[in-house]
Structure formats: C-alpha cells, structure tokens
C-alpha cells in the first residue's frame, strides 16, 4: 500500500471513529447535567417523579458511557497510531490539554461509579445529589479540554517555527488560542441541547405509544425547556463562530458560503446547488453574510478566490453547514412553540403529529452534531495543523490501515447494535408504571 492510500484510509478510519464516538460523547457530556437538574427538582419539589426520572436516565446513561469510554480510548490511541508525524510535532505544544482531559475523565469515572452504587445509601438525598456535581463537571471539562486540542489544530499558536523546528513553546498560550472560546462554548451548548432533545424524544415516544402517564409529560416539558435554552445559546455562539471564521479562517467561511469574490455587503446563500462554479437555486439574503461576519451590513468579506487553490477546503461543506443551521433553527422553533404552548394551553402541542415531531427532534439534533463536526473538520482541509502541516505529511506509513478500517467498522457495528438492543430492552421490560408501582409496594412494606 502506497503512502497515498495510507493517508486515505487513515482519514476514513479517523472520520468513522470520531463520527461514532461523538454520538456517545455528546450524550456523555449532556446527560449528567440533565440528571442533575432532574434530581435537584425532585428534591426541591419533593416530587417522586423527577427522582425516578433521574434514576432511569442514569441507568440508560451507563450504557452510553460504556460505549463512549471505549470508543474514546480508541480515538485517543488512534491519534498516535494513524497520525504519528502529527503527534510527534504537535505533542510538543498541545500535550497539556490532552493530559488534562484524562484527569477530567478520571474524575468523572470515579464519581460515576460512586453515584451509581449509592442510590439508597444516604438518608439525605442531597448528599447523593452532591456526587453528581463532579460527574457533570468531569464530563463537561473533558469536552472542554479535548475541544481545546481541536481548536489548536484550527488556530495553532503558542510557539515559533524556526527552520521547521518548534521553539519558544508556551503551552498556556496554545490552549487559549483564538478558536477556543467559540468552539468550546458551541460544543457544550449543542451537547446539552442534543441530550435534552434526545430525552424529550424518548418521553414523547412513550406518550405516543399508549402511556399517558404524567411522568412522561413532566419529562417532555422539562427537557423541551432545557433544550430551548441551549438551542438559543447555540445559535448565539454560532454567530460568534461566524465572526471568528471571518477573522481567522476566512477560507472556511468562504467555502461554506460559496462566497468566491471579495466584496462589501456580501449576501448569505442558503441551500442551492453548485453547477460549474455557478450557484443555482440558492436563497439569497442580502447583506446577511457581512452581518454574520462583521456585524455590519456593508463590511467586506474575503472571498475564496483570494486563496491558492491547493489551500482551500472542498466546496461541499456548504451543504453540511446549511444542514446544521437548518436543524438548529428548526429545533429552536419547535421547542419554543411547545414551551409557549404549554403555558398558553394551546391544544395542538398535544396532538399526535406534534409529538411525532418531538420524537424526530432527538435524532435530528444528533445529525446536526455530526454535520457540524464534519463541517468543522473538512472545512480546514487540506491542513491538519492550519498553515503548518498538511494532512498528507501527518499520516502513518504503515500498510495495514485498510484492514484496521474493516476491523473497526465491524466493532462499531457491534457496539452500536448492542447498545441500542440493550437500551430498548432495559426500558421496555421495566416501564415507568411498573417501577412506580414497585416503589409504592416497597414503601408500604417498610411502613408495615
């Protein structure tokens, strides 16, 4: 196998591993916060339903954490196995956040074990709630640190490049690179948002499938509210990300927007297709790109033609960007209508079709996560370290990457199917009505 093939298969394998991992990783970051909120509400309102909600989410969460942990280990090692030249170079500058990520992960792992096995141990439920705080902090901070590593790849800094050697290294400066604030904030907000909508979608599905229990109604209302808050946050941060791109990575923004010529008062292109360099059927919003990029309708936006052709990303990232943004806006509207609808007692939010839309919202949000990451990653092609190292120079020279790709594809299939089967079985076998009845019986037994 030649080097070119190694590069190709290394890219495919990394994309496959990450695409699979981020589903579980996103859930892993977001769900602890949801469990914490539910548990806290349960204690505050003295409402058994919220406590049970936290408990049942936790049980499902363990399964997704397991897959998240093992695929996270895989990508952690694959970084060195598939991109040895990259790690050799970048490791000198960016090892610190990578290292700190494992601490966050360690912290979370310890407290998750404790949390899981102390459900009825403490008289005071607040003590048990306290255990969740390190779990949620660990989960979020591992996302923060690993996103910092990724941000560094987009905006490397904290060193000087002298004759191909990295000198004057400043690890802290490398961590606080210009891409970091928007990336970290966007990753966190969308992880919380996606987790909330996934849980809402489960609740809505149970409501559709015959259970009309108040428990599910509370669950859907709570998660839709949380989802709404974080989808608004994600949109605001997304706007900041656009401004970041215009300033520091204009070729990514230009490729995403099919903005070829540099000019002032640039319009935003929504949808459309690209035909021989001509944009067709696109919705054109005048001045919107200038506003997105610089908050000024007349500002100049740099076009793609300003860059050498071998340093521009592929143009299909436009579709990824549009897909992500569309789903984001759609989910904001859907959850806003629902929350307002509950307050105003609108009846249509209780109809079957609206509940089906909520069910669909969970998978859609996951899709948006995938689209967003593909956009972010493909958008910095051909660089692995923007402006410093290209992808071809970074890959392994090993000839067995194609076989490994097949092996990992098989592995993810097994893990994906396994986790779905186990999760559905867990909850189908023990519906909430059953569990509530069991708990009631248990309590009476204790009183007697």
């Amino acid at each position, binding site marked *: 196998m030649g080097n070119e093939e190694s590069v190709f298969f290394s890219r495919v394998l990394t994309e496959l591993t990450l695409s699979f991992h981020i589903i579980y990783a996103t859930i892993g970051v977001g769900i602890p916060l949801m469990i914490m909120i539910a548990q806290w509400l349960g204690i505050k309102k003295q409402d058994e339903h919220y406590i049970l909600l936290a408990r049942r989410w936790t049980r499902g969460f*363990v399964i997704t954490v397991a897959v998240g942990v093992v695929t996270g280990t895989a990508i952690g090692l694959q970084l060195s196995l598939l991109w040895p030249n990259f790690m050799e170079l970048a490791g000198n500058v960016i090892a610190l956040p990578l290292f700190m990520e494992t601490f966050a992960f360690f912290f979370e792992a310890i407290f998750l*074990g404790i949390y899981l096995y102390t459900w009825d141990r403490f008289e005071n439920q607040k003590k048990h709630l306290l255990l969740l705080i390190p779990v949620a902090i660990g989960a979020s901070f591992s996302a923060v640190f690993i996103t910092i590593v990724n941000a560094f790849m987009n905006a490397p800094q904290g060193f000087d490049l002298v004759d191909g050697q990295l000198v004057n290294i400043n690890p802290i400066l490398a961590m606080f690179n210009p891409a970091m604030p928007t990336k970290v904030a966007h990753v966190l907000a969308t992880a919380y948002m996606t987790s909330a909508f996934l849980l809402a979608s489960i609740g809505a599905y149970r409501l559709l499938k015959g259970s009309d229990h108040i428990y599910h109604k509370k669950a859907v209302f709570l998660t839709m509210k949380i989802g709404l808050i974080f989808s608004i946050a994600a949109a605001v941060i997304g706007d900041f990300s656009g401004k970041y791109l215009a300033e520091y990575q204009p070729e990514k923004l230009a490729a995403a927007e099919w903005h070829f010529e540099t000019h002032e008062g640039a319009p935003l292109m929504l949808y459309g297709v690209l035909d021989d360099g001509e944009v067709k059927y696109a919705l054109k919003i005048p001045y919107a790109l200038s506003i997105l990029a610089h908050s000024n309708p007349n500002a100049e936006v740099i076009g793609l033609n300003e860059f050498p052709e071998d340093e521009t990303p592929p143009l299909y990232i436009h579709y990824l960007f549009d897909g992500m943004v569309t789903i984001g806006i759609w989910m904001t509207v859907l959850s806003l209508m629902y929350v307002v609808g509950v307050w105003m007692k609108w009846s249509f939010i209780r109809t079957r079709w609206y509940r089906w839309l909520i069910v669909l919202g969970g998978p859609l949000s996951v899709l948006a996560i995938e689209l967003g990451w593909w956009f972010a990653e493909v958008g910095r092609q051909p660089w692995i370290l923007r402006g410093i190292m290209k992808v071809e120079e970074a890959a392994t020279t090993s000839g067995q990457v194609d076989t490994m790709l097949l092996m*990992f594809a098989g592995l993810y299939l097994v893990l994906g199917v396994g986790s779905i089967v186990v999760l559905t079985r867990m909850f189908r076998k023990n519906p909430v009505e059953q569990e509530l009845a069991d708990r009631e019986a248990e309590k009476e037994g204790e009183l007697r």
Partner: protein
Amino acid sequence: MTLEIIGITVLWLFLFGYVIVASIDFGAGFFNAYSLFRGKQHILTRIIQRYLSPVWEVTNVFLVFFFVGMVGFFPKTAYYYGTILLVPASIAIALLAIRGSYYAFTTYGGLKHKRYTYLYGLSGLFIPASLSIVLTISEGGFVTETASGIDLDYVALFTSPLTWSVVVLSLSAVLYISAVFLTWYAHKAQDEPATELLRKYALIWSVPAIVTATGIIVELKDHNPEHYSRLVDLWWLFAISFILFAGTVYLLGKRKSYGIAFGLLTGQFLIAFFAYGISHYPYLLYPFLKLYDSFTNEAMAIALIIAFIAGLGLLLPSLYLLLRLFLFNKDYVQGKRDDHA
C-alpha cells in the same frame, strides 16, 4: 532528578497501576467464565461482580493516562511506537472496547447469556498478550528503519521465544495477581467457599508466573546483552522481589493474613517492574529512541508536571473515597446493600 526522569517515573507508576487493576479485572473475568464452565459459578460470580461494578471504568483510565502521558512527555514515541504498533494496538483497543461495553451491557442491561461470559473471560486473556508485545518490541531487533519510514518484522517477532515468554508471563501474572486479590476480597466478604477456590487458583498460578519471569532474564542474555548486563547489576532488587513473592505464597499456604499477602504481592511486582524499567534506561526503543532525545521541551514538561500534581490532588482523595465506600465498606463487601441505580 531531571525532568525526564520525573516524567518517565510518573508514567511507569501509572503503567504499574494499570497492570495491577487491569490484572484483577482480566483475571476476574477469566475465573468467572471458568467457574461457569465448571459449573461452580454460584461460588464466584457475586463476589466478582460486587468488586468490579463500581470500579470497571476507572481501570480503563489508567491505560489512557499512560499513553496520553507518554506522548505528552515523549512526543517522539508517537512517531516510533505509533507507526509500529498500528496492528497490535488496534487489536487491543478492539478487544478492550468489546470487553468494556459488554461488561456494562450484561451488568446493567441484563444481557445474560453464557456466550458473553465466555467471550468476556477469554478476551481478558488476549488483551494482556497483545499489550505485552510492546515490551518485546522495545528490546529491539524487530524494527527496521528505511527511507520511507519504519517497519515491524512480524515474522521475527512471532517466532522469537522472547515474545512468547513475555506473553506467558503476562497471562500467568494476570491470573496470579487477580487470584490473590480476590482471595483477600472474598475473605473480607466472609465467603469461605470462594476464598478457598481462589486461594487454590492463586497457588497454582504462582508457579508459572515466577518461572517465566526468571526465564525472560535468561533469554535477554542472547537477545539484548546490553540490557541483560544492566539487569544483572540490579540483581539485589530482583532478590527482594523474590523474597516478597515467597512471603505471599507462604501466607496463602498457611491460610492467614490475606491482606498482607496482597500487600507483599504488590511490593513484589512494584520492585520487579521498576527494576526492569531502570535497567531499560536510557532506551525507550532499543536502539532508535533514547529517553533524552525524545523528551518534550522544558516549558511543556513543567506544565505537564504541574498539571499532574494538581490532578493528583484531585484524584487521590476521590480514589480514597471510592475505596472507602466500596472496597472497605463492610456492608457493601458482604453484599448486605444493594443500592445501585
């Protein structure tokens, strides 16, 4: 002490931590599967599950910590070992992935089938084997450097007696460590049948563990004379290690102080592990990669060590809490509490 030595000592310590906790985990999975096979599962399963459930995730972190730290402190290892280890490390990851997730699937998800128990038990033996190959490779002789990159000679690797000795050592050590720990744990749980069974396993596996460990030193004499002579210089460390080993076996044989027996075992492996590591110095990969050449820049090294100290400040109390709540909680160990979500 230079920063390089601090770095490698920290990493070696974490690798040692992984060896101990992972051995307990892998061995437990194997004994569980074996007892199911022999129809004695009722004796062991509950003890094993009770120990593993709250800690299985933590085990994995030790490994991640080691390789992330290794690349952080010694970025050049990413180039050498990353290129060479693609296949063995990928196999180990895949096995770890299946193992870890199926543990969760069966424990929490109720996916209870004999097939999974067997798979789980067996995979635990392949993982140490595929990981310990790194130790053989680091001795040199299997890697060639060419103009286009570096290559690993699989034929030479798999026909070398050294490779197979390391594999046998890793397997018997896993089963030995695990059995000694679980004997202690079962004894704490006042589960006499399990204690007796595990004690028997421990005594059985102590023999191949010590025989292969000695055999490897002899084999190194031909394979890497330089390393062998440094090993011999450290003979007294290995002698202490052997005395500790004898102490463990004695206590197990006399059926007393299982806790101390496990303590001695930890000491035995710690000393042997560090003696081996010290004798490996100054090479990370003989003869291509030396400790000093591959070290990261000073700014990063200091940052990593500060992060490490801060991290330990967070981790040690948390680990202590974990152990106190489960390992050293009488009611939990004896199975009088079932508080899990």
